[in-house]
């Protein structure tokens, strides 16, 4: 398992290699990328802030939840980037390996959804002439 908050660029192949075993028939990889628009506004770039120590701990907790629900899962790795990210750059990588694709897809999907609810990371959207911290729902631990 690998859980990391980093200001360095994310590399998907590294995460895929990290979770793959000889028993893995599937590695599901989710890559969250910065897009150039949100709610009708043209986005210039994003800035991510994180409570890194806690985020890494919470990522481990939600990974444990997922492996209890999908015991076939072999390994999980999650990385999130902080700081300024340009359009097209990767902010989040979630990799899940399993013997077969069904559990890999399902566990990866559930993990990304849970990540969004609970991991203490925030993003600020910057557009021409303004900026705003984007807030989801209140945290549901």
């Amino acid at each position, binding site marked *: 398992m690998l859980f990391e908050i980093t200001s360095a660029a994310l590399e998907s192949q590294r995460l895929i290699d990290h979770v793959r075993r000889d028993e893995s028939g599937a590695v599901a990889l989710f890559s*969250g990328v910065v897009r150039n628009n949100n709610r009708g506004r043209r986005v210039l770039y994003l800035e991510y802030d*994180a*409570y890194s120590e806690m985020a890494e701990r919470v990522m481990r907790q939600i990974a444990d939840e997922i492996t209890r629900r999908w015991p076939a899962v072999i390994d999980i790795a999650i990385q999130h980037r902080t700081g300024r990210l340009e359009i097209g750059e990767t902010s989040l990588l979630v990799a899940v390996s399993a013997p077969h694709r069904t559990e890999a897809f399902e566990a990866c999907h559930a993990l990304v959804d849970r990540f969004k609810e609970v991991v*203490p990371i*925030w993003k600020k959207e910057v557009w021409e002439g303004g900026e705003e911290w984007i807030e989801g729902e209140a945290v549901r*631990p």
Partner: protein
Amino acid sequence: MKAKVRLFARLSELAGTREAEVELGEGLTAGDVYTLLCGRFPQLAGFGDVLRYAVNGEYVTAVHPVGENDEVALIPPVSGGAVAL
């Protein structure tokens, strides 16, 4: 008795700092730490309804007790990842 407070995102920008120390009385809670902090940084007021608390890196409720040298974090609604809102 002192506790350390961590601020992030909008709250750290409003306060102009990412860390603060508060002097604690006996029997104070995470919610009380926020109230104390609003006394020093009035611009932080008004977030009580959406705020969550963490003590030493674990989510807790507003009534969770805070002790000497604890680290309290004020957690506004999160928005990690890059999935569409």
